[in-house]
């Protein structure tokens, strides 16, 4: 059995013998390296540890979170838009090729304080902009379940690394669905917490008001454990909140009976793939047989949420990416004569097409003549999306819906039509706009391609959300990809 398939498996090996860590670390490293080999490499990682040390990091004595012990010696992967001093942080961009941050993100420091061993940095769509990990300057990641298909994105590298069994858990980031969507497409669990739950300090900003650090793991319980380790107030992030981290030991798969689960009709429209619909319907049947009250609910702002997202996210991106100017760090075009040329060429050569598209879009909607018509209206719409969701969540315990309209699509199939790609985020953007927690759990597959079901709960209700998620996980009994010989 792969000792990297769960936190429990890691701990079992770590506690079984004195050199447990060395063996676990070498195993993780070997598996990670293997993902880069072959004719169709998974290419989950952008950088890796050179060697596995003999002794793992100890949880720091001051670490106050109880999850600390659970992560001692556990290899964990980190998306390459989260700053680390031990590895470059490229954001999947030529702009930051070789860039090493002088500081580590708060989430990374908390992982390390809890004793985790960062194995490497994972591939992503450039600066998190994409839903397939094809928009990486360092080549696409492939889906371990089917190497001809995308792993989703933008945390595709983290999802693939976990799905392929190189690490039991990884950090990702989500701006519009970049944790849940790749988790769903790779058949693992993706957890996006409440906005303000995990410090964004050291997460390279894409759209600050929508950016979240999230967790990818193979079980809800493991995701909750990692979340507990990284959550909590951070004075370095003015948007982080003074809330106690959600406790993994309070996550219980026991009770579904009596839970009311809202099913939003808008998430089952024409765009929903028939296979995904069938898997969802089967899951709903299971839920209702367990005593869950399945309640139809309405989220009328669903279709508008995507449009709203694609105004706000590019607007913030155009601002956040202004700092990549070739002056202080990152790519600087050589041999330029004027300031304008320095900017034009550094940014022109450093950014990929999707990033440029969003910067142009964002600059447009923030320009004085367009601001009211686009940006201000998008902000109004964002409030409506949040109000809609909060209204529904006042009536039910959780909202349950498909995570994505379709399973993993073939590599290259949507690159020519950006708006088709954007539709992959249709079901996930609402939780980012509203700042509420959301969780994707594998609930089955369509012809071997994993399908995810998405739970959304009220702000700060991660414990309840994970409990329902764990119950669904147990109920469905979905076999993660490793059982089919991947990884």
């Amino acid at each position, binding site marked *: 059995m792969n000792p990297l398939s769960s936190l429990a498996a890691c701990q079992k090996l770590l506690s079984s013998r004195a050199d447990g860590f060395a063996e676990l670390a070498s195993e993780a490293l070997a598996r990670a390296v293997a993902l880069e080999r072959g004719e169709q490499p998974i290419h989950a990682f952008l950088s890796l540890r050179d060697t596995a040390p003999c002794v793992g990091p100890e949880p720091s004595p001051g670490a106050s979170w109880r999850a600390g012990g659970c992560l001692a010696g556990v290899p964990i992967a980190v998306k390459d838009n*989260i*700053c680390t001093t031990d590895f470059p*942080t490229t*954001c999947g961009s030529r702009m*930051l090729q070789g*860039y090493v*941050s*002088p*500081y580590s*993100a708060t989430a990374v420091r908390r992982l390390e304080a809890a004793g985790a061993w960062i194995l490497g940095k994972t591939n992503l769509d450039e600066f998190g902009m994409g839903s397939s990990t094809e928009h990486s300057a360092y080549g696409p990641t492939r889906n371990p379940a089917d190497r001809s298909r995308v792993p989703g994105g933008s945390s595709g590298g983290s999802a693939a690394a976990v799905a392929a069994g190189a690490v039991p858990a990884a950090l990702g980031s989500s701006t519009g669905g970049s944790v849940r969507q790749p988790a769903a497409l790779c058949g693992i669990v993706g957890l996006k917490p409440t906005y303000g739950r995990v410090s*964004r*300090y*050291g*997460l*390279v*900003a894409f*759209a*600050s*008001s929508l950016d979240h650090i999230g967790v990818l793991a193979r079980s809800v319980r493991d995701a909750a454990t990692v979340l507990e380790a990284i959550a909590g107030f951070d*004075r*370095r*992030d*003015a*948007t982080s909140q003074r809330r106690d981290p959600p406790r993994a030991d309070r996550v219980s798969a026991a009770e579904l009976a009596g839970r009311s689960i809202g099913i939003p009709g808008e998430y089952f429209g024409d765009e929903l793939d028939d296979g995904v619909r069938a898997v969802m319907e089967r899951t709903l049947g299971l839920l209702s047989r367990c005593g869950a009250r399945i309640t139809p609910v309405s989220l009328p702002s669903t279709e508008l949420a995507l449009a709203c997202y694609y105004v706000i996210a590019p*607007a*913030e991106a*155009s*601002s956040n*990416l*202004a*700092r990549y*100017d070739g*002056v*202080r*760090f990152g790519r600087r075009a050589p041999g330029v004569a004027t*300031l304008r040329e320095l*900017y034009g060429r550094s940014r022109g050569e450093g950014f990929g097409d999707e990033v440029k598209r969003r910067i142009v879009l964002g*600059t447009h909607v*923030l*320009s*004085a003549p367009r*601001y009211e018509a686009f*940006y201000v209206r998008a902000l109004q719409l964002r409030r409506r999306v949040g109000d809609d969701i909060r209204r529904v969540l006042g009536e039910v315990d959780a909202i349950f819906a498909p995570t994505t309209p379709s399973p993993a699509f073939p590599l290259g199939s949507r690159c020519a039509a950006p708006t088709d790609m954007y539709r992959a985020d249709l079901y996930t953007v609402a939780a980012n706009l509203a700042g509420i927690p959301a969780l994707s759990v594998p609930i089955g597959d369509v012809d071997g391609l994993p399908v995810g079901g998405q739970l959304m709960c009220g702000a700060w209700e991660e414990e309840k959300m994970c409990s329902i998620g764990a119950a669904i996980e147990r109920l469905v009994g979905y076999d993660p990809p490793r059982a089919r010989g991947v990884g």
Partner: protein
Amino acid sequence: MSDLGTGTVIGLEVHVRLATVTKLFCGCPAVFGASPNSRVCPMCLGLPGALPTLNGDAVRLAVRAALALGYRVERTSEFVRKQYFYPDLPKGYQITQYAHPLARQGSLRVPDAAGGRRVPLRRLQLEEDAGKSVHDQLESSSLLDFNRCGLPLIEIVTEPVLRSPSEARAFLVRLRQVLERYARVSDCRMEEGELRADANISLVDSGGVTRAGRVEVKNLNSFAHVERALAVEERRLAARVAEGHAPGAETRLYDAEARKTRALRGKEEVLDYRYMPEPDLPPLRIDEASLRAAADGLPPAPAEVERRLIEHHGLSPQEAARIANTPGRAAYLEATVADGGLPLARTASGLVLGQLAAERKRRGLESEADLLPPAALRRLAQLRLDGRLSARTAARALELLFRLREPSPSDVDELVASRQLTQVAEPAELERWIRQALAAHPGEVERYRAGEERLLGYFMGEVMRASSGRADPRAATLLLRALLRSAEG
């Protein structure tokens, strides 16, 4: 310019650096003159992933400044990003305030011939400074120093109501007085860029219709420059109007050496700053408690103090302005005179502005109160007012009092008695000093008698010398004249 039927309208935009220990959005020390790029961190360099956290002390000082300028402090204000590309702006945007500033509707009373004029202030906002570009040290490159990035500034914008370059200058002098000496929120050292002003100027006709402008003048780094640049621009615009032009909005740079302004950019090149809400900072809320904390120990406005000194204590406007220069000095004078009446206040004010101010400066003390307790000064002023001390003996008494530690009023009396400093009006005594003086200068006496009457002052000086300054000048003058005359007969 009256021949053109135009008037001048000037508005000012002033940036003042708050005297905080650390920067506005990070923990870097806010110091001047450190070696380039030695006071920087991921935040002020705009490194990927860095986030701003608001410095509470900067907020306190900004609120204090707002209160000192009579602003209405907003319970909720918001930060925005003002976006433009420039190498000394690391993030590609400045964090500032726009639609929802920290405070609105302030005012500052500026002295003028008519006894003061209220200049309305539009808004006060809290924002970060940019870095510094140095363009003239290397031939083909510019140098960048990011130490200044993120230093806390407040921006104060006046309504365009100032009527002349000299009034603009008077406004700035008053503003500095309030912020530096009264509110103590900034050191306001212009040479270090702690107070920077941009001005806009327009010419309007008698009906208030704009004839020229609005021209923004930048690069004004002293009060003298502000006044001179505006005067230069006022003349330039008037000349253009006289030639039949209607100069439009533009931005011009003042060249202090050439005493000229030159065009920087015209209206058509106006920048679109693409303002957007700053998502990394929640709205800034100011509650009652923080308002109280910011107002702690805030003295009344200098205009208010001056009004009291003039109306209640009978000082002249010039005297009042000098006394109110610092709130400490005004408080000292008021403690000294209490309700002692107008003559006492004027006498005390003369002593404070004269010998006490000079001695305080010589010793580098904070306040005149450190030299002499108010009660002792009051006693001394009273003796002077009663005619028991002359100007000269009062000065001598002060010199001696400065050597004592915290002298009491009775110490003053004792010193005046023991050193025989009281003024003498007793005729026998005076006559003895006068005769002594006249006997020493028979030649001058003869010239006086020959009609050279201006020598009277000379003899008075000699009499004062002979009396060690104790002779009562009025009585001595009368007697001196009489004796000179009687000797004639």
